[in-house]
């Protein structure tokens, strides 16, 4: 690569990073502005204040935000775990076994994934109220599974396909049952794939708003994105902009931490599901 080319790559890269990160930087900056500063039209706050953070963590919005944070974590983790486990079995079957209806399962999963959430949320609201799932954790976990399972099945079956068949056959000849071969050979080899899938599934559940706002009514199950929409200002003439920004920053932190922690796994998973032996 010539130096001229490299310069262009760097310039282009910086432009893309600025374009992508500018809104986030703006939110961070907003979250540190005091109420009087918010509409002043400047990028940086005139005085750095943490009043928005104390507002959501200890102040007026804390009984809205903190339970929501707990709900979000619990619901998303459970949904991710269940969907990964189910997807692992489904993907294994799809990648390995020949059974009638294989393509049907895959195409159904795809159809579910592209089905607009907004069109099922109203019937789901009615059903959930009838059977008592409205405003409960399971009431959100189940719809989240419908969001995360299809993509988990698709990504994981791609990973399982990359693992050579012989591995498993060798294990069987060595005396393993199908289950042992799966647990001792296939699962460890598929670990990067499972990680990647888990993280993607977690993000999807974490980011959901429509189900969260429609299927909950109290802090018993309301997740963070829905809670953000319910923030109110100090008076009815004030927007809760600062509080929402601060909450948005806090909500972004786990995602960033996850990505940083598992960065190598994710990259390895996304680029190289293949197992070279």
């Amino acid at each position, binding site marked *: 690569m010539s130096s001229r080319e490299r310069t262009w790559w760097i310039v282009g890269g910086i432009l893309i990073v600025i374009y992508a990160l500018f809104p986030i930087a703006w939110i961070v900056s907003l979250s540190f502005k005091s109420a009087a500063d918010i509409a002043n039209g400047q990028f940086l706050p005139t005085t750095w204040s943490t009043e928005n953070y104390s507002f959501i963590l200890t102040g007026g919005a804390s009984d809205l935000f903190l339970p929501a944070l707990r709900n979000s974590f619990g619901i998303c983790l459970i949904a991710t775990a269940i969907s990964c486990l189910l997807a692992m079995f489904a993907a294994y079957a799809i990648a390995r076994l020949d059974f009638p209806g294989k393509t049907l399962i895959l195409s159904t999963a795809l159809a579910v994934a592209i089905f607009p959430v907004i069109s099922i949320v109203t019937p789901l609201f009615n059903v959930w109220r009838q059977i008592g799932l409205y405003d409960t954790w399971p009431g959100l976990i189940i719809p989240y599974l419908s969001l995360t399972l299809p993509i988990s099945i698709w990504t994981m079956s791609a990973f399982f396909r990359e693992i050579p068949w*012989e591995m498993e056959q060798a294990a069987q000849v060595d005396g393993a049952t199908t289950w042992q071969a799966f647990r001792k050979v296939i699962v460890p*080899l598929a670990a990067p794939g499972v990680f990647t899938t888990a993280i993607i599934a977690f993000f999807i559940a974490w980011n959901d708003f429509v189900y969260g706002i429609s299927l909950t009514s109290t802090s018993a199950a309301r997740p963070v994105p829905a809670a953000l929409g319910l923030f109110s200002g100090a008076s009815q003439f004030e927007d809760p902009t600062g509080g929402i920004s601060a909450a948005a920053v806090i909500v972004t932190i786990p995602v960033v931490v996850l990505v940083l922690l598992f960065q190598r796994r994710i990259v390895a998973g996304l680029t190289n599901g293949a197992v070279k*032996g």
Partner: protein
Amino acid sequence: MASIEMKNIVKQYGDGYPAVNDVSLDIADGEFMILVGPSGCGKSTLLRMIVGLEDITSGDMIIGGKRVNDLAPRDRNLSMVFQNYALYPHMTVYENIAFPLRLSKTPDDEVRRRVTEASDVLELKEHLERKPANLSGGQRQRVAMGRAIVRQAEAFLFDEPLSNLDAKLRGQMRTEISRLQRRLGITTVYVTHDQTEAMTLGDRVCVLRKGKIQQVASPRELYEQPVNLFVAGFIGSPPMNFLPATLEGDSLSTPFGPIRLDERRVAAVRGRDLLMVGIRPEYFEDASLVDEAKMPLGSTFRARVDVTEWLGDSQYAYIPYEAPEAITAQLRDLSRELDAEEIRTQAIVSIDATSRIREGREAEFWLDSRKVHVFDPQTGDNLTRDAEAGARLTQMAEEDRVEQVEHAQNSGQTVSGQGTGGGGGGAHGAHRAGAA
């Protein structure tokens, strides 16, 4: 250890194509059996049916007197070395070898003892803590073998284990496998498409073609008494030469002059218009270098040499000849089936390395007519096969095998189970040097 019996084994795939068609084969306890044939002949399928990775459409698979058709691979107690080794990349070499023992819940100190023994035999000791990805091809191959020998399996199955190695290593591993098999005295089935491996390793070789057994015999019998054109063309390198011939009186008229046949062979080939005579390259010789006493046992002819290849220890000459269409068509089919490139109608002749025969000149050759075979060009059958002589060769090979196994087991060390335990590494080393 156990014998393996196959009775009328058939494997049909979903589309009805029989990959293995009515194969019956008995493999004796402790025997080294080779399954060989060109690609697509069903040899790997047959092996996978023995180990249980492939369902058997019909027929009986009997291992150690027990019908195993419906047993899962893990209940058959066989060990297998795969073509790509199928090592577990997330485990160390030690754990890879120990894997079968771990599955059978062997106690830890027993596992350690057996893995150490196996790794000693295969010289893997210093690599035990490494991961397969960091090993060379030959080392990976040895790990795969270690995993196979670490437990007391009924039989070893090899699926083209050397095809991923370079030529030098292949030769080395070949002798290694042979020595190991003799020392352990364990029934072995070995699939290959490489005829050098087939000839050097096997007690008996089973030649397959399109899912059917062509001939099961010792390498010597295959070489000297092939049952048909396919086996004759497949075994031997450079391959057997096939010349068109017609019977005139008691001798064959060929492009290389008349070849006299003895009475038995004349009787066998009489009554056919066109014949095909099969002559191995080494049955030819530069006429000027042939011993006076040997001369009358064959015939001489003059021919123009197209190309010569001098290899130091030997020399090959290529002699073109004319053949009728029926013969060339048959030869073309044969070479296609053997995965060889188009055979030209030329004979490959092995002559002494000191011979002064040169390219482009006419020279006189001598042809040993005692061992030529005559084939029917239509059916490919060998008309002059001496079944008795063949059986004698295979019988001799069997006796050799018994003797070798006894010798190897008396002098060599044994792996796993036969109670050598620890101790005695040095003494074994001395014995092995003596035996080798």
